[in-house]
């Protein structure tokens, strides 16, 4: 009788409406846990701190400082760099959330429940939207705080530019990509040590190749768009940097908004591909294969125009 009852529960929760309700309930629970996680809170705090300290400064008041009040930093933060800490914190805290059952030794217990692993993975994937909401709120508040609607000063000739919607969305989508990546990583390589090393590699490569002032070999190359966070600045000369820490690095030509738009499509398809990869771990269904194939095709197609836009 007991096994028959269990089978009927399992069969019932596999029906789409029941499964959706279950996923929604688990998403709410996981989302609440995510936003209260200490690592996530540190990430939110650091991002908020970076947004708060970088003001829109003119050429006269610009000065380089370790707390980066250089000219153009406010624009750069809104372009996504302000959310870099939130993105990394989301990756780590979501990954820890997925690995919770493994860490606590409750995998066996969960297997005896009617909800399948696929359902829980879907809930973890959707819980990342809580982090995305916080990222969106941070960008919106900073946009108003900096009065970016009137334009932000971006170079030493005091030129002002209003950040485009495509640029504003980049950081928020990067948070989503990092969070989904955290789930996919936990699904396929369920070791937190692996996640830590991968996070370090991501951070180091992003820092060295794209954002470190003294080196960044890809900052002027269109290959920078292959990284989740890339700035849309274009330059008039090789030695120029955005944001410029001093006049010596000035030389901004403008912002490649078209490529930033293509980059959003690239990030969106990367998100879908990683989400499907995470779900595919526990459910090798043909429909998933089709979706992943389609996402990878879009990913490949979207990656090309951003390189030549």
């Amino acid at each position: 009788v007991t096994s028959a009852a269990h089978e009927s529960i399992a069969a019932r929760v596999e029906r789409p409406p029941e499964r959706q309700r279950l996923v929604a309930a688990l998403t709410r629970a996981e989302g609440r846990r995510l936003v209260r996680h200490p690592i996530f809170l540190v990430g939110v705090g650091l991002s908020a701190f970076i947004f708060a300290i970088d003001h829109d400064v003119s050429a006269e008041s610009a000065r380089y400082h370790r707390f980066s009040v250089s000219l153009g930093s406010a624009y750069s933060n809104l372009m996504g760099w302000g959310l870099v800490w939130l993105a990394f914190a989301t990756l780590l805290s979501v990954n820890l959330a997925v690995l919770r059952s493994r860490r606590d030794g409750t995998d066996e217990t969960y297997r005896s429940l009617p909800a399948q692993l696929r359902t829980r993975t879907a809930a973890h994937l959707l819980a990342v939207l809580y982090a995305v909401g916080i990222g969106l709120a941070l960008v919106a508040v900073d946009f108003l705080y900096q009065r970016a609607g009137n334009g932000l000063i971006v170079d030493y000739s005091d030129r002002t530019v209003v950040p485009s919607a495509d640029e504003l969305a980049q950081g928020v989508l990067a948070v989503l990509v990092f969070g989904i990546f955290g789930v996919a990583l936990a699904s396929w390589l369920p070791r937190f040590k692996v996640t830590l090393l991968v996070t370090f590699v991501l951070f180091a490569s992003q820092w060295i190749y794209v954002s470190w002032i003294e080196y960044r070999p890809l900052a002027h190359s269109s290959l920078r768009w292959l990284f989740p966070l890339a700035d849309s600045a274009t330059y008039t000369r090789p030695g120029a940097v955005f944001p410029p820490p001093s006049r010596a690095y000035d030389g901004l030509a403008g912002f490649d908004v078209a490529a930033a738009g293509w980059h959003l499509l690239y990030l969106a398809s990367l998100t879908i591909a990683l989400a499907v990869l995470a779900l595919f771990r526990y459910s090798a269904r043909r429909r998933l294969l089709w979706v992943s194939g389609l996402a990878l095709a879009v990913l490949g197609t979207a990656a090309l125009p951003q390189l030549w836009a």
Partner: protein
Amino acid sequence: MTGSRPRARQLLLLVRPTVRSADWRAPVASGALAVVVGALTSGVSPTLRLEFAAVALALGASSALDDPAADSLAASPAPVALRHAVRAGCALPLPAAIWLLLVLRSHGIDRGTLTLELAGLLASALALGAVGARVGARGGTAAGPALLGLVTAAALSPASMSRPLPWAMVLAVAGAAGAAASRDPATQVWRQYQTRKA
């Protein structure tokens, strides 16, 4: 078994099984990462390259104190501090050897300060692992992100971290915290605190 000679013998007896049972995947992977980061970033300043290598090596050591058999061993005559010392002693030669290799191949760097930086990061990783193990089940889970947080704080710090003094302070604080977290839970001070808390 509280004398120095039996303790030394105990220490020697513990080394072999600790080396054999330790999970070497993370330290080896982080060592490889430190070498690869150096090789792939030839255009970067040697100082920054070595700083990244130091972080990678410290990340590998962050789970060195994790002992799956800690609960079973809690009742054994070997105290926590001794077991931690043995595990730390077994984990440190690998990053030290890789560091030596990287430092000797780099020119125009302040070797002393950078080595002090590595020592500070390694000590922090181990201390955070010890604190994490004291507070929860797995120290490495807490130590890794906390170490990354420490590195972030150092990068964002208004004070220059390229001088030896801050890293010497980090080393001293981490050493003290590690030693305090490795005290046996049954020691008098800890028991008094627990009694007072209860």
